[in-house]
């Protein structure tokens, strides 16, 4: 892909999403756990009167979490016309917005270990690290 990518860390892995899909980033959010909901659902939060469903992206992607999530930072996604409900997800640490060009992208490696590779859109090689660009449609469409 080409364009600007919003990056963040999830369990020590640098991930990113198309910045145009992000609505905003919130720190120290308060949220409500939904007993009985699937594991991937972290809970619900109130964003200025809107109910946002927060996902636990690490669980969805199959990352193993070494320690308990401490900071409550989350990325809220823009609602698109066909979405009936708004979604967001927790990140461990916000990163940057970086410009990605086509030549930086690489095909998905055959195996990413336990990581759910179907949710990874692309692997971007940065100077000092690897960035996994996530496929939001697959993650939230499912």
């Amino acid at each position, binding site marked *: 892909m080409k364009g600007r990518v919003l990056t963040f860390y999830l369990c020590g892995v640098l991930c990113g999403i198309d910045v145009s899909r992000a609505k905003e980033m919130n720190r120290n959010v308060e949220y409500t756990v*939904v*007993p009985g909901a699937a594991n991937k659902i972290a809970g*619900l*939060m109130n964003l200025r009167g809107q*109910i946002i469903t927060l996902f636990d992206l690490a669980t969805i992607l199959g990352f193993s979490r070494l320690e308990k999530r401490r900071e409550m930072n989350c990325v809220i996604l823009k609602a698109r016309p066909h979405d009936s409900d708004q979604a967001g997800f927790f990140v461990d640490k916000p990163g940057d917005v970086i410009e990605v060009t086509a030549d930086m992208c690489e095909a998905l490696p055959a195996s990413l270990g336990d990581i759910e590779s179907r949710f990874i859109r692309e692997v971007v090689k940065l100077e000092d690290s690897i960035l996994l660009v996530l496929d939001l449609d697959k993650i939230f469409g499912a």
Partner: protein
Amino acid sequence: MTLLTKRYTRRKMKDETDGFTLVDMQGEVSCVLDYEALLGEFVNEGLTHVQRIEKGLLDAERGLQDTEQINAVFRAAHSIKGTAGFFGLKKMVELSHAMEALLAKIRNSGKDMDSVTIDALLSATDKLKEMLENVKDSENTEVNAQLARLTDALHYKQYPPAAKKSSGSTRRDFNIPGNYKEIIRDAKKRGQQVYQLNLSLDKSSGQNAVSPDLVSKIKSIGNVVYCDEGCNELACLFTTVLEPDLVALALDVSEADIQQISDDAQKPEDFNVFKKSSGSRYSLEETSWSAKGENGVMAAYGGTEKKEDERVRVDVALLDSLVNLGSEIVLGRNQLFRRLEKYAAAIPELTASLQHIDRLTTELQEKIMRTRMQPLANVFDKLPRLVRDLGKSTGKNVQLLMEGKDIELDKSIIEALADPLVHLIRNAVDHGVETLEERKNTEKSLTAIISIKAHREGGRAVISVSDDGAGVNLESVARKAIQQNILTPGQLAAMGDKERLNLLFHPGFSTSKQITDISGRGVGLDIAKSNIEKIGGNIEVSSVWGKGTTFRLRLPLTLVVVPSLIVEAANQQFVLPQVNLREIVRITPGDKIRKIEYINGYRVLNLRGELLPIINLAECLGKTTGNIVECSITRVLIVRSEDRVFGLTVDRIYDREDVLVKPVPQYIKECKAYSGVTILGDGKVAMVLDPDSLAPATMSMATERQDENLTYIGQRTLGTMAEQQEFLLFKCSGPENFGINLPLVARVDEIDADQLQIIGDKEYVNYEGSILRILRPEDYLPVKKLASRRSKLCLLIPKSVKYPVGILVERIQDTVQTAVDINEEDIKAKGLWGSAVIHDKIVLIVNLYDLMELADPERYVTEQETGRHDCCQTVLLVEDTAFFAMVVRQYLEGAGYQVLMAGNGEEALNLLGKCAVDVVVSDISMPVMNGLELVKAIRSNENTVSLPVIALTSLASARLEQEGLEAGFNYYELKLDKTNLLKKVALALSEREGRLA
């Protein structure tokens, strides 16, 4: 339409006076006004007119035709024509003009419309509607068919002009100049129209009814041909380029007072062009005319339509945002209150201000919600047409009765209601109502009646849709369900009538013999049900064979704000809608009357004689919490779900709050425990609990030990559990009702009658690979025996019997859980425990073991003899379950023992102190003092230390047996194993005698 033309006219008028030509003026109009928006408005208004036409025509068909009605239809058609012309929609003009022409003729003839005319008009109306809905494409729509039908209708029957119209206007005759035809022709040449203005001034309002400069006003828009100005009358003939409605506006008079005259006119009366008054002050005058009876038509019109004029059209989006803001303001108030609570004492008069705001907010909220309320008429009014068309296409005579049209519901509910209601009506006409021949045969009136009644019941609206048709054939429902693999025969056999009826709502279920294009595609009722449930309502069906079917819809009046109780469980707040809360019970430790008890490991609360199961919210949601601390004060919320009442314990109970319920996000839709989400006063998100789904989840725990094949409809309120018995109700070939204790039945299955094989004088069936002896209860009981007519029969397989048999019955009716007194005296026979009254019917309770003995006397005879004791030994039977007590007692008495009864360990000890007992037979699990405690007490008392005690249990387990024997029981026996029990009793007694000897 009026709104539109008004706007247009204002602009036009201004331009006129400014001296623009018509062409210039239109040019300006098109650039000043947003064509698209105007067109949209036209469509909206046009659709309203179409609706009015439809209603008028249908009324006319039902014989309610009157001049007012026809005029209203006429005006509506005319309005469409007028504005369609403005937009250059020629086809629409053509069609509405043809309708208008036909209507004019009908009106002038003063006769009733025949069905050809009505059909032609209705089909044209449909076309108009179609064109309006697709206005951009309307020019390409084919209208010739409709036009031809209208023309046919026009000539089909002559509607000669009535000589004297009863309610027609009595207009003052003009002394029109003889050359008026010429004048008209001249005017036409110049593109002008000729009008006749006719005003009558009422004396009471005469001073301001006609502005003195009316004539000069006319001159400003055209030429006056003739004018006659009396003291309270004005008649004027003039020419102008303006359309009639514009003239009315220009002159500030009602359109009704203006008549357009065309050149081929014979009489001005033929061309009366009535148009809806634009709500001017003339409506007043019209009303006064009505009092004088001079112009009934217009007066009635002014009277009925005035109400409508008081309404304003508001954009739905604006209303919706208003509703949202209203809800937000309620939340804001709640927030404010929570935060300011602690300053109430510190700031003087804060409380008063808050209260004021509170009241205002509540009122504001209510009023805003009211704006969304719409009368049911919005949905109901579409139904007569539907019923008419369905009736025609199915060839049935159907009459529709409607009641409660004015009940108001939230807009979203009204909208969601439309489809299900239409479906129910279709169903009623198509499946419910019989064909004419069938009705003739059953001596019913040929005209079927479908009635839709709406009324308010508490905070809900109830709509019932009933037909007087054939009713639902349960047999065929059952057959279809099996054919379509919805159920297994076994499941079906265990179902009661009500459940079978509910199969109608099963997805994919259809009973109609053939699929018609009206309904019966097998999708529908289930969708109707889910649509109704989506908006928080429910639907029930009841049906009487031969009499008809009724669907009852219960709907909430509004959706959005719900008064609720905020509770806490697992450190989290939840919202419980107050509708579901019956009461809150405070239980203090040591209270003898109100306390939480344990029955079979389940917590129950005895509340005023009602035993309510208690569930813990946190546990229910899958969270673990510490046990309820029994020593502290507990509060139990008594929650009423759809069909059950239960107790709910939570960690904390907060205040009540009005919450704005939002739908559960799609991502967590699978959590059934919630009906919505809300934002609390503190800004936190909280889940709204759905008691209906909380209850079954926990209820199933209590019943899962039961046979899975059976569904239980317990009686709504649980009686005291000690006397609760579950019965399976069934019928044999005769009319008698039978019952059997459900715990004795292992399973129920359906078999085909031709599977039965007769060997000797006994019947057998190949059942799951082995040969099963069949018993028909009516062969052995003193009841009526009839030849079986059914091809499917039900087989009851009893539990824990020595020789397997199948009890063959005709039909399973129901399972009930009820506290009954079995009367052992009135109806007495071997094979029966007695009779009982269940659901107001006498039910014979079958003694399964007696029945088996009757059927196979040779097998049981020896056992009887070995078990017989003639000595008068006394057995103390300790058993809390009435049924088991009865069974075991009968065994023992049958064997010649004297039996003393005790309901629990404590009672048993009392009896032991008073009476001489030779052997004790005791249940293990009992209230107050259980069997283990009892036996320990017996062993610790030196008088009874050697008394034989036999444990009876329904649970077979080596560990339990070990425990029992260690506690001091001599023997451990399974309940209902008659032979072994008697053997053990005899053994225990002989051992005792041996010891004593």
